[in-house]
């Protein structure tokens, strides 16, 4: 009896940490697979307005993004301060919107082409003039499904 007790006091049980790397790697792979890296850097300011009556956009593979806003600090001295359109990673003009959207739709698999939504990510300081020009361009190429991306929240802060 005394022998047993002595042994117990001298050495407290250690938990093996050998499986810790495995657990952490598992978490790591989980995050690596579920997250999507941002493809392009934003060249325009993009603080979206907020709204309450919004719908979530599922099916990420059917969305074409268009960004609009004032160019960021690095580009102000090149393109000026007026709000600009960003398509993929390039700053573009209104006339480029139509061809861009058609090209993006053509890249999608054929069974999805009919369901493509154009998501407009527009800075809240932008003017409606530019937006309606973009809408006209979209109508010309028959891309009629659009979505004004917003944050969720009370609209009073706008």
């Amino acid at each position, binding site marked *: 009896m005394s022998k047993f007790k002595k042994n117990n006091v001298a050495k407290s049980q250690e938990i093996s*940490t*050998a499986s*810790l*790397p495995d657990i*952490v*790697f598992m*978490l*790591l792979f989980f*995050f*690596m697979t*579920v*997250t*999507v*890296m*941002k493809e392009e850097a934003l060249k325009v300011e993009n603080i979206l*307005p907020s*709204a*309450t*009556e*919004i*719908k*979530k*956009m*599922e*099916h990420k593979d059917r*969305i074409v993004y268009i960004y609009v806003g004032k160019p960021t600090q690095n580009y102000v001295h090149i393109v000026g301060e007026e709000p600009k359109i960003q398509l993929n990673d390039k700053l573009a003009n209104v006339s480029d919107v139509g061809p861009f959207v058609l090209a993006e739709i053509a890249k999608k698999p054929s069974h999805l082409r009919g369901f493509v*939504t154009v*998501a407009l990510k*527009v*800075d*809240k*300081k*932008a*003017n*409606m*003039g530019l*937006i*309606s020009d973009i*809408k*006209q361009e*979209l*109508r*010309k190429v*028959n891309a*009629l*499904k*659009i*979505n*004004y*991306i*917003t944050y*969720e929240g009370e*609209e009073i802060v*706008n």
Partner: protein
Amino acid sequence: MARRAGAPEVSAGSMADIAFLLLIFFLVTTTIETDAGLDRMLPPMEPPTEQDVIVKQKNIFQVSINKSGQLLADGELIQLNQLREKATAFLDNGGAPSGTEDYCKYCKGKRDASSSDSPSKAIISVKSDRETKYSTYITVQNELVGAYNDLRDRESQRLYKKDFTAMEAEYLNPETDKDVKEELKEKVKRIQALFPQKLSEAETSTSN
């Protein structure tokens, strides 16, 4: 003589630290984002037809936003927080007399003969200036969609004891079961038919 018993073991003790470092890097740099926003259909570009579609003036609710963000709804200067109420009253009016084909049984409005005939005839038209701020425009759109959602919720509560917005969200959720989806689709379609969303996107006017 020391390396007699095969290759020396590499210590795996720091493996956890390395993995943690990577994990934290990925946690910080990536974002799981789902975008949400206001869905809208643009009117198709149609060749000019000889016959103009005639819509009665009383069936149009005209909302104009000027460049300083002021609102004009049906010729009246109003505040943003009044817009939803006004739009709801207009949509829910049901002015067509009973017995005619446009008569709206489920409307609870004033049945004012000088306002919209029925929800399916009622059109809301939004007009903005080129200088109007985008945030103002979105707020107006949000209020109008809100008016539709309020009315649809009301009808949905009456018919199915459930909010329309909740049903729609469940229908759009990819994790929803297929059978449930089919059932919801029918209900959603029916409610949408009661109050079809007719928001017209008029072209912007140029100031001066």
